[in-house]
């Protein structure tokens, strides 16, 4: 079975781009519209990887990552965050929150797929 990826972003166009790139590479994709939605879906489902935006309404990506990492069932799931932050601060905060890696927006769909392969190993 193909890996199941949860994508969390408040922008429908980014979600769509992400979904097209990942499904095109054979992954199964579930979408969430903000951090809270993402957290609920991550807890309700079985995912091999999570791709999340950081800056979102309701619950931002950092809080979602922290919440996921504090739940024993969700440590170890690769979490990749999308960021356009140019400063290292956001990145290190996300890493401190427990993120696995990042992809800098704007991203090339191919890059996203490469990163998925990198962290999923397949």
């Amino acid at each position, binding site marked *: 079975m193909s890996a199941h990826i949860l994508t969390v972003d408040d*922008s*429908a*166009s*980014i979600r*769509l*781009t992400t979904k*097209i790139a990942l499904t095109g590479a054979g992954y199964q994709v*579930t*979408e969430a*519209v903000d951090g809270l*939605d993402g957290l*609920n*879906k991550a807890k*309700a*489902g*079985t*995912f*091999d*990887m999570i791709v999340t*935006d950081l*800056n*979102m*309404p309701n619950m931002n990506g950092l809080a979602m990552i922290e919440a996921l*990492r504090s739940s*024993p*069932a*969700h*440590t*170890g*799931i*690769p*979490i990749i965050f999308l*960021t*356009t*932050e*140019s400063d*290292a601060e956001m*990145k*290190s905060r996300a*890493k*401190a929150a*427990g*993120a*696995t*890696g*990042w*992809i*800098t*927006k*704007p*991203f*090339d769909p*191919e*890059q996203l797929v*490469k990163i998925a*392969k*990198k*962290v999923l*190993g*397949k």
Partner: protein
Amino acid sequence: MDMNEIKEIFFQECEEQLAELESGLLKMNDGDRDPETVNAVFRAVHSIKGGAGAFGLDDLVSFAHVFETTLDCVRSNKLEPNQDVLKVMLKSADVLADLTNAARDGGGVDEARSRQLIRELEALANGEMPAASEPPAAKAAPAPKASAPAPAAPTPATAATSEDGFQPIPFSFDDFDGEEQPVAPYVPTCEVLFVPKRDLYAKGNEATLLLRDLSRLGEMSIRCDMDKLPLLQDMNPEEAYFSWKISIATDKGEDGVRTVFEFAEWDCDLEVRTIEDEPEAVAGDDEQPMQPVPFDLSILDDASDVPAEDEPPVFEQPVAPAAAVEVASNVVKLAEAPKAEARAALAASPAASQAAANAAASTAAAPTIRVDLDRVDRLINLVGELVINQAMLSQSVIENDNNGVSSINMGLEELQQLTREIQDSVMAIRAQPVKPVFQRMSRIVREIADATGKSVRLLTEGENTEVDKTVIDKLAEPLTHMIRNAVDHGLESPEKREAAGKNPEGTVRLTAKHRSGRIVIELADDGGGINREKVRQKAIDNDLIAADANLSDEEIDNLIFHAGFSTADKISDISGRGVGMDVVKRSIQALGGRITISSKPGQGSVFTMSLPLTLAVLDGMVVTVAGQTLVVPLTAIVETLQPEASAIHSFGASQRLISIRNSFCPLVDVGRILNFRGTQANPVEGVALLVESEGGGQRALMVDAIQGQRQVVIKSLEANYTHVPGIAAATILGDGRVALILDVDAVVAASRGQPLKQEMSLAATG
């Protein structure tokens, strides 16, 4: 779904974000310092930048980037968002909107203005916090397109901290499908010390995968250090205890190696050194000389491809280390184990959690759907037919049913009720709030206030009032012009206002509300009001009125709607673009609307526009002309009157005038103009409809009789037949007859000199 459709979604999002941005900035301008407001503003710009980058909209990205940087300073309290700062930001929001539109429609933007604002934004970001390392001006230059071939060739990755936020990270790890790189005759060797922190696995990084990626860079030998592995009872199987020392021959250099560990950089201690020719010399600090272990890639692949369920159980772990001293494959399996456990935990009840995920996914759907306007229009059209059909049915039943209480009759009444409800509901689909148009106005106000040096506050009310989309689309232009006029001519300069004891900041109030089935939009300013003396003098100078004409205040005020009328002494850059209030009035009338003005000297003016909620139906007066049934739009009719013989005056060969309250108004014989008849009708036998037409002039349209007032469904004549001069459209009446809807302006224009005989004959036969 193709890229353009996604792009269109992106642009729709942009519109929402731009609206959010502007309203947030305006709130901040009013003193709102709620961090959530600042965040929302930041997020809006951030989202636009993020999306724009994905679509390679470089101009948009670079501007948004600079804007975002400055907003970040506000967000982090490094920059106080005072009025001056917000002024620059509001202007920047405008430019961002321009850039978005340009990206969408392919038009150009005022580049000098964008550059100027980029400089101002950067100055704000730099000026207030000299210590911070803000992107220099050079970074505002367009970033390379996301589709540029940069990632194809492995580029040495810069340190994560110095990378440019809006440039794609060049990824230097090789294509996974690629074969192993042939080893060059001489390649430098890198020595890598990889010491994972305890939580490496918890954060989703995977030593196995990192080592495998590394192995793709070149031939490597690897040694595992297991000294930190505790006793079984002390061990947490989810933590990382091993570290590795790797020697790799690669032409990718240290940067290439670091790129492999990019994500793990925070989760491990990493040392990378290039060894020139003598690897032993560097390894010397280790007690044991390095024992190269052949690293078999296929083992790694196998390990990571094993489904989670088939992984060795966790309890096997303690056995592994003993064997792993020299064989890397065991180490690899051990490293995989914590993840396997996590996966197993997740997979505990796959069916149940899958169902939950599906349920959750379905709630993500937004509560709106996007529908082609064409489909809605088709529906509206069909409902129009239904309304007509229902009316026809009712009429024929009433004609054939004498007592009027039969069950058919009651059923019909219900049908009528339902039809009306369907019609209202369908119309409501096209209805949209006027908010977007109102929001655009705040920008117009800012620009003119800037250009005129006036200080203006725009207040809006009833932004959520809904009206047909077509009306909204056509509303922006006249409204823009009126707003320009209100600020440029309506409001006084701050000095004058102060001298008059007013707040130096002028107020323009834009209000929308529903009133008796129409939308009423009011534009009020608290300026000096109409200068009636000046208007009157101007009207006399332009021969609009006689020098001794006795006009009421209201009549004088309404003179500004005359063609070519402008009270501004000099043509200003803002409102003097060759269009006056007459153009505004005409476009409002074209929408089936009316506009009036009331003004109080020293207190300001109020323009009131009343518009139909939809352009699909029309309130019309059904009239008879030479045996034909015509519909005249009610909005065009000022009054109707029964002419008396004494009021009719002949003028020249064929012109006739009617005197109405001491003024003369030309009579227009509709039947003659449309070639329904060859001779002029006797005005005394008919009815005169006093209409106001293009240019503001009044005419009396002569018709034979008035049948009544009715709401009619507009049917395009062009779509079904062909354009007929003098006729705006057609409709079907309750009795099934087709009636033509009169184009009042065209008829009046035709009466002015050149009756369009040839073309008009079409109407007669139609």
